[in-house]
């Protein structure tokens, strides 16, 4: 696919330079981290697991175990079945895996491994000869790296989990929440928000503990935490299934499945970033619970609006270039629009095809003309555009640092990955509280730049 060309450039680039996204299996590995007792497992060559572990560890600063079937030349030719079965046995017996989150890679997709059949054979084998440690549930997801991005892997794995575990369940009044790829701090806050309305919540996935856990005195076989199998089995009994993300394709959406197969009432909202997207989530929770937003949360919202008023002069007329995962970008642009920052370019490596229309939707009531949008793009595309666009700051993940440095434009770091800053896993983006955190961070970046660039060096700003 040829990427969108910049108007200034005659020929579109064929190659990709300095990518803005990662490959599909990475997202699946993150989602599988969010299941209790689950070992994420890649059916592919050894390097994939090691590269992804390193990539995730540098962001979360936590041990991230990803097993691999270490496919070699022999298995690539003759089939990786034996190697896969051996691997499944090993992770069960040695790690005590209760769930194995199994994803293919570009290699095993291209060699044409039939994952469905391989897992079926494995299940049959252990049914006849059960493992001492108990047979694991093997949840499989197809992750051809040449199709889609890490976000497709994330959503695909989430849906695979729901499809695998969902069982007929009596209505239990809980809310099923599919939070999208957000930080552990976001996950904790989302659970807190739902519970504040007196509702039970099952988050899928929930890596808030496994990827942001406490100091330990003993290395567990597997980090504690995550959505339990029982919680996932009971999803069809949910009062409602809520999925965040405006760009998720129905075929990889967990709510599409729960709605179609189990007739669970479904609501798909944008990621609750900023004022109006969070208001929408709160309104939904009010509707489901029949309760008003609790006073303590209304106070948070009030404080946010108050802070936006206090900050409006610092922000008025400012411009930003935003990049990252599509749904994150939509949420960030929605918030920037609310606080008077003009987005001159919104870019993503994602290619759902919905980015431009969704950005239009969240900015329409505030802007006459929607921001410029680049889908399926990389940082070379962004840089080509930035030459002709104005930006007081960049808002996005840390891979934009090189661009920020070259242009001497501050980068306000949000999302994933944050490989060059501390505390990425604790960064709060969602809810009114998350918006306030974003506001403080953005305003302070602007003030810092203003102070640094000023010949006077004012003490009061």
């Amino acid at each position: 696919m040829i990427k969108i060309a910049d108007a200034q450039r005659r020929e579109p680039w064929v190659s990709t330079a300095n990518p803005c996204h990662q490959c599909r299996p990475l997202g699946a590995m993150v989602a599988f981290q969010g299941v209790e007792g689950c070992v994420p497992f890649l059916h592919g060559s050894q390097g994939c697991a090691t590269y992804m572990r390193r990539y995730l560890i540098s962001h979360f600063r936590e041990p991230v175990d990803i097993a691999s079937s270490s496919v070699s030349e022999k298995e690539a030719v003759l089939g990786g079945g034996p190697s896969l079965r051996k691997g499944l046995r090993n992770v069960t017996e040695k790690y005590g895996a209760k769930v194995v989150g199994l994803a293919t890679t570009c290699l095993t997709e291209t060699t044409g491994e039939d994952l469905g059949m391989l897992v079926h054979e494995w299940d049959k084998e252990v049914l006849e000869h059960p493992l001492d440690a108990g047979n694991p549930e093997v949840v499989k997801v197809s992750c051809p790296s040449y199709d889609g991005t890490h976000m497709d892997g994330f959503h695909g794995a989430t849906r695979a989990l729901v499809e695998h575990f969902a069982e007929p369940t009596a209505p239990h009044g809980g809310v099923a929440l599919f939070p999208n790829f957000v930080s552990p701090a976001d996950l904790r806050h989302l659970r807190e928000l739902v519970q504040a309305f007196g509702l039970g919540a099952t988050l899928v996935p929930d890596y808030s503990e496994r990827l942001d856990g406490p100091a330990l005195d003993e290395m567990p076989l597997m980090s504690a935490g995550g959505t339990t199998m029982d919680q996932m089995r009971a999803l069809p009994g949910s009062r409602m299934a809520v999925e965040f993300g405006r760009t998720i394709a129905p075929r990889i959406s967990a709510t599409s499945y729960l709605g179609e197969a189990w007739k669970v009432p479904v609501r798909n909202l944008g990621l609750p970033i900023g004022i109006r997207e969070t208001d929408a989530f709160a309104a939904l929770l009010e509707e489901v619970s029949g309760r008003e937003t609790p006073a303590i949360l209304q106070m948070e919202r009030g404080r946010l609006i108050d802070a936006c008023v206090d900050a409006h002069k610092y922000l008025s007329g400012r411009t930003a270039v935003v990049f990252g995962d599509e749904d994150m970008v939509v949420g960030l642009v929605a918030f920037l629009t609310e606080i008077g920052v003009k987005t001159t370019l919104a870019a993503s490596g994602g290619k759902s095809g919905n980015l431009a229309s969704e950005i239009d939707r969240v900015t329409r009531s505030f802007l006459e003309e929607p921001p410029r949008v680049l889908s399926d793009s990389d940082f070379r595309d962004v840089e080509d555009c930035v030459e002709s666009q104005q930006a007081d700051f960049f808002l996005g993940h840390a891979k934009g640092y090189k661009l920020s440095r070259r242009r001497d434009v501050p980068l306000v770091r949000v999302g994933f990955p944050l490989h060059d800053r501390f505390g990425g896993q604790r960064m709060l983006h969602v809810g009114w509280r998350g918006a306030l955190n974003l506001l403080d961070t953005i305003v302070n970046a602007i003030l810092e730049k203003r102070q640094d660039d000023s010949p006077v060096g004012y003490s009061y700003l």
Partner: protein
Amino acid sequence: MGTDSISVFAERKGQILVAGSGQESISCDKQSLSGAVSQRACVFCGARVVLYPIADALHLVHGPIGCAAYTWDIRGALSSGPELHRMSFSTDMREREVIFGAEKKLERSLRELIAKYQPRGAFVYSTCVAGVIGDDIEAVCKRVEADVGIPVIAVQSEGFKGNKRAGYSAACKAIDRLVGTGDTTGIGPLSINILGDFNLAGEIWLIRQYYEKMGLQVVANVTGDGRVDDIRKSHGAKLNVVQCSGATMELARYMKEKHGVPFLRVSYFGIEDMAESLYAVARHFQDVDWQVMEKARRIVAEELSTLVPEMKELKKRLQGKTAAIYVGGAFKAFSLIKAFRHLGVKVTLVGSQTGTEEDYREIQQVCDPGTVIVDDTNPLELGAFLRDNDVDILVGGVKERPIAYKLGLGFCDHNHERKLALEGFLGMRNFAREVAATVESPIWKLVPRRIGRTTANTPLSTETVNRRMP
């Protein structure tokens, strides 16, 4: 201690031994066990790390985006000039191309990138998918090379075709294609190439400076702060000085066979190894110029005059602490064992990802009895070992760091990503300081594993504060 306390995979038993236990050999260079979380990487990774620092070359990854995304600016390999190596280029193969072949996209990508970035050479890395679909990368490279007038080299680095060592081999073969294609005019009799140093945190500049002070001409850095044109004429040098056990040995052997350039194996980590490296090189040139040795001695004496007193101070502080080492190559492990000895730190575990049987035999000889030696370990084993032994610091790469930190013990990054020079005499000082800075942090008194081992863990008094009037 024995290996029993490590809950090893039965099939990995042969890959672990205890120094002085009578067990003589260790099995290694095996394919990683399926289902184990190996710290190893793939062929592509091995090739990519070796070629990566060549700063004025275009490095194009032919495959889906992952392989390029995860290796973008991944190493701290510095350049004194161009920085093309710090960009990430990929053909970003899509489903259509996997089905119909991606040679056209590769060719167009190569041509546009060479036109735009004007590199002095280009490396095209084959990945798993490129290998499986059978793209003829070699043919594309030849075609482009004929038109653009710079070397365009296919690197046979399909991830699944072996382990990291196979990647080193693929890289050496790629570099070998460059060697011997340049003009050697002006290269004198006192000349060397530096092999197997990647200029992490500017280390090769330090080492080059030592050699230049000895009166030697450094023709090519392979590959730290490397340049295509230097490598092309590197066969004119009179000696290859090779660091790092696996990465560039094969190239040194090729250069010996094809161009008659002899080689020496050295290590720049630690005091003895650094000094011995300079002496060994000086000895090689003794018959050409006896002053080289004299100059080498002067460098060592001068460096040691400031380093030794500081090391003594640090040793006082670190005496009795214990360390575990888990690094990529075994050569580095040797040097680290010796370096820790200078600091009074006892090494209780040594492991590598890619050591050979010979390497492990040598490691066993330099270790204290009882030291556990492992090949290609995994987080489970490593965690179990660190739990059972009150280790103060683990030396490893970025993937080991969270294991150490989660268990509340110190860590020193000794891998590609380090930002602190650890080679040379300066590197020894940096290493010693970093070990001390980590080991002496007060936080180790407050981590769970030290509960009961120290009184510092107890809460401060809950008695009301007795405020005094001034």
